[in-house]
């Protein structure tokens, strides 16, 4: 009764508004809508324009980039920056390295994180609470504290300056464990119980039954770990030193700092940054809806 009383209250009230008031409020409503759209349009422009100008400048010559930085249409379209990037620098190597590391880390993370999440959510084993506390504690340690120590440990173990050193430390992500654990806790146990009764082992149950059900959460993990490892910088700084293992982030950062006589070279730098953004952007546009809705899960969970 209480829920429905509000409805009848509003309609007669609206209907009983004097005519001029309704007109005024509707005019105000229109004005409000217009302001809203204008505001949104301006903000959207502020957010989109930098990327447009980035792509436009990468196709300009250096002189034009310095002389006319704001225009979105180059007067003379030139691919000199891209040519220099792909043919005369190590950019393809950087891209390959980033791709290798990202793929390995994403696959690894998906596997390990879902294993751990399932164990923490479903399996009863001694010390479960301790492990969970460990994971939570890890989330609290800020990354900056780990910069120097990670270098020390990588050096001690002997995987410094190798692909192993780049990939292994990134294989674990506390937030991912959280997400999977929350997800697994939200699905009913009936199917698993059924499978167990039918005699399936724990891993079997996990692999063949629970994991396929976890597709939405897995997609989230894939997106997050792809983004995270593609965009990672500080870990690669401390984990590698040879030029052959440079990733995109480290390489583009070195382009940005430049050297003594390399001047400003904006088209080149912006081209590099643009290409670097493409894979994550593609992933983003494909999985837009899911990414936008992940936060709901995060808030509720």
């Amino acid at each position, binding site marked *: 009764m209480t829920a429905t009383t509000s409805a009848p209250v509003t309609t007669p009230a609206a209907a009983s508004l004097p005519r001029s008031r309704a007109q005024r409020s509707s005019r105000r409503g229109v004005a409000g809508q217009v302001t809203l759209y204008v505001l949104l349009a301006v903000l959207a422009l502020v957010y989109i324009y930098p990327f447009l100008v980035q792509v436009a400048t990468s196709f300009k010559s250096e002189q034009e980039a310095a002389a006319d930085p704001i225009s979105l249409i180059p007067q003379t379209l030139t691919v000199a920056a891209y040519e220099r990037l792909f043919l005369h620098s190590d950019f393809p190597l950087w891209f390959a390295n980033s791709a290798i590391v990202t793929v390995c880390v994403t696959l690894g993370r998906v596997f390990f994180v879902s294993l751990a999440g399932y164990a923490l959510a479903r399996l009863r084993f*001694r*010390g479960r*609470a*301790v492990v969970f506390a*460990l994971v939570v504690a890890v989330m609290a340690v800020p990354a900056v504290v780990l910069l120097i120590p990670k*270098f020390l*440990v990588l*050096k*001690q*173990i*002997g995987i*410094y*300056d190798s692909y192993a050193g780049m990939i292994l430390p990134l294989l674990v992500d506390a937030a991912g464990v959280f997400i999977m654990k929350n997800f697994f806790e939200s699905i009913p146990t009936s199917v698993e119980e059924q499978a167990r009764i039918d005699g399936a082992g724990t891993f079997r149950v996990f692999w063949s039954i629970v994991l396929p059900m976890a597709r939405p959460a897995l997609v989230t993990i894939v997106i997050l770990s792809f983004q995270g490892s593609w965009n990672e910088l500080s870990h690669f700084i*401390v984990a590698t*030193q040879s*030029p052959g293992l440079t990733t995109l982030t480290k390489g583009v950062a*070195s382009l940005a*700092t*430049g*050297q*003594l*006589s*390399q*001047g*400003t070279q904006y088209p080149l730098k912006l081209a590099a940054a643009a290409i670097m953004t493409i894979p994550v952007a593609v992933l983003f546009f494909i999985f837009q809806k899911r990414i936008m809705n992940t936060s709901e899960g995060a808030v509720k969970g």
Partner: protein
Amino acid sequence: MRRHTAVTALGAVGLVGATVIALTGCGSGFDEGDNTGTGGTGSPAALTSSDDALTVMIGSSGDAETKAVQDAVAAWSKSSGTKASVVAATDLNQQLSQGFAAGSPPDLFYLSTDQLAGYASNGSLQAYGDQLKNKDDFYPSLVKNFTYDGTFYCAPKDFSTLQLVINEGLWQKAGLSDSDIPTTWDQLAEVAKKLTSGKTKGLVFSGEYARLGVFMAQAGGRLVSEDGTKAEADSDANVQALSYVQQHMKDGTFAYASDVGAGWGGEAFGKQLGAMTIEGNWLTGAMGDYPDVKYKVVELPAGPAGKGTLQFTNCWGMAADSPNQQAALDLVQYLTTSDQQLAFSKAFGPMPSVQSAADTWKNDNPDLVPFLTGADYAQGVPTNKGAADVISDFNSQLESLKTGDPKKILASVQQNLEAIVK
């Protein structure tokens, strides 16, 4: 459940402890690593020798330099049979430090005077100076720069001084001739004023001690005494020099390269944002990017205490951890021969560090003779341990010189220097 948690916690601690001990075991393996080939910081022990390829890391001033070094190393590699590769560092100091700390540094690398003390004192370097065949051919002041704790560590690879470089085109456009080349501070200010028009400033240079130091030298001041035992940053001469620069920055005739939108003085000069600049030999290599600019190198004007300029030099540092030091020494010998140094000079500018090449160089580069003349009265930069950090702090304060107080800046530099000279 409680008991189980306690047991598991204990188990976790035990696991951690066991791993730490295991890591210590791994770690001690590295201890042996840093004992070979060093013999501590003093006497040069026997050099290591193996078949490993050599890595040479350089802090390049541009494509010209990188290519020149790569060609030279490739030529040596072919004739000696040892593979060698050249890496141009983006941040030489950081990459060297990381390499040393990781135990895998490059075999040979550019080492500047202000970094020598730091790396030598913690055993990262292999001293090989006394084993050089052309040891006596190097300029004595350069050898002194690379001697730490009585040991001559590394072979100077070249050296440069700073002089005044003027844009001939803009010079003539302003109605100036050769007789107007400034020889005093006042004349420099006058000429700079005449050359300042529109977007171009009269004198543009990088805003750091490595450039402003010339004015300090011309006023008779230095950062540390010649023997490196006393800090002299807050002398009146230095204050006078900085005030002179500040005055003309305020009236718009002098400017920092960053103020006009360039990365360094050479870029500002090349883009004609500055009609004059204070740069060293390496400018010739960089000016290849700006072929339209005709320029001329002249001696810097004399200040209240006479002529003065700064001298910069790097040496070929050799890592103590290098597995093939014998080959590295061989490469250094090759790279420091008179002919090779002259070839480098032609490619990117700096002057050979061997005295036997001086006359040939003067003949080959008549336009750059002022740089060599500068060597007669040039000051070196402080080489004390920790000086690099003090200078970088000095540089960061110099960025606000226009609105700052020279006395205060120099007082803080003095304080920092006093902490490291004792």
